[in-house]
């Protein structure tokens, strides 16, 4: 029992690592992708659009396998599973976040940019102080959904052999002929998502002071 608990804790830490590392990289990267998707330079726009379509149009599980195994089959080089897993998650989630950002950016009235320009704000100032806060307020619900999905998606990392919580639970389950480990894992995902959704509710409330 002791061994099981400590194994599952280790798996939990790995799941949390996947979760946070994915967010840390893909939340800002999504903005870069969104900008690329909205650029006036057509070739960049096409490439970024294709990338987003591929990320949204193919299963994440397939992308994980591809990112991990493709370098091996193409260059004969293999690398760390965990790194591959983070790369796959980040490129996948950046695409999803970028579409949320894009819809948020496009929902901002042109008048906000024009008023900023006429008042003499620089482009950077306008983006960070005028546009971004309003975008964040508008996209928060969609962002919340995506982050909740990410918590559950971390379980997919097992397909390339990353020992995250779900894999640990599955292995323990078949070893001990018990569904208890699976159940414990379920409780973890549930608690994790409960915290995430509460956090988003709090943030939405905080931004409720204006319309």
């Amino acid at each position, binding site marked *: 029992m002791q061994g099981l608990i400590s194994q599952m804790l280790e798996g939990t830490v790995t799941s949390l690592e996947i979760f946070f590392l994915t967010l840390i990289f893909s939340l800002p990267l999504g903005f870069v992708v969104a900008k690329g998707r909205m650029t006036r330079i057509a070739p960049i726009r096409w490439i970024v659009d294709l990338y987003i379509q591929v990320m949204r149009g193919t299963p994440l599980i397939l992308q994980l396998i591809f990112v991990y195994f493709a370098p091996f089959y193409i260059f004969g080089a293999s690398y760390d599973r965990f790194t591959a897993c983070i790369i796959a998650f980040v490129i996948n989630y950046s695409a999803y976040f970028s579409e949320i950002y894009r819809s948020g950016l496009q929902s901002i009235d042109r008048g906000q940019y*024009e*008023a900023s320009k*006429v*008042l*003499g704000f620089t482009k950077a100032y306008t983006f960070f102080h005028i546009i971004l806060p*309003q975008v964040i307020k508008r996209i928060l619900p969609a962002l919340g959904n995506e982050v909740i999905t990410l918590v559950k998606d971390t379980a997919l990392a097992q397909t390339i052999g990353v020992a995250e919580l779900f894999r640990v639970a599955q292995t323990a389950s078949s070893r001990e002929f018990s569904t208890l480990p699976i159940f414990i894992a379920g409780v973890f995902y549930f608690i994790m998502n409960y915290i995430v959704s509460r956090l988003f509710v709090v943030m939405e409330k905080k931004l409720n002071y*204006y319309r």
Partner: protein
Amino acid sequence: MEEMIKLTGLKKAFGGVEILKNISFTLPKGNVLSIIGPSGSGKSTTLRIITQLEKADDGNLEIAGHTLFSSVDGKAVYCNPEEERQIGLKTGLVFQSFNLFPHFSVLRNITEAQKAVLHRSREEAEEKAMALLTKMGIAEKAKQYPYQLSGGQQQRVSIARALALDPEVLFFDEPTSALDPELTREILKVIRELAEEKMTMVVVTHEMHFARAISDWAIFMNKGVIVEEGNPDRLFGNPQEERTRQFIASFQD
């Protein structure tokens, strides 16, 4: 008299369609110019070029003695970006749709640019903002957010926001078109007071009586050209051109 705006030969096309064909006017310091004309005649585009929201294709523009662009071989050549910015600070624009920042309080809407652009201290900016809000008769709204205000109050905030930067010339693009008659009167009163204080202004409006009453000069535009201009009593009372007469008549009910 000192010229605040000297615009000559302004041309602008969108997608190959000439929107402004040859716009010229001068505006002496302390004067009010009103621009009237039917929808699509290019009034907004003219203001947007002077306030640098759009680029001119050709022409010359001097604001308070500084050249924003001048015509070279049939093309408008702009001064350098820093000069553009400096000239931009001399002009203010009040929009039809207010365009207040919804996430800022009324007070912060007025202090933000003072602090970020003019580098005024917070105290100085707030003092200025409160003085302007008092003048607009909405000092008690300082802590509220734009959505809590009526359209007329929002427009007064946006006028205060523009005035806070001490522009040398203020442009209004149909400042009352989004307002009902009662709120319209509120805003017209504010603009009238500014005119009495000798604020240099250009007002695009469909309020004919108001335009006639406050302006020193009036321009009638149609299809990208100035059809007729003159002192307001003459332009509104005794227009010479048939098109002007028709347009003004359409507002008499």
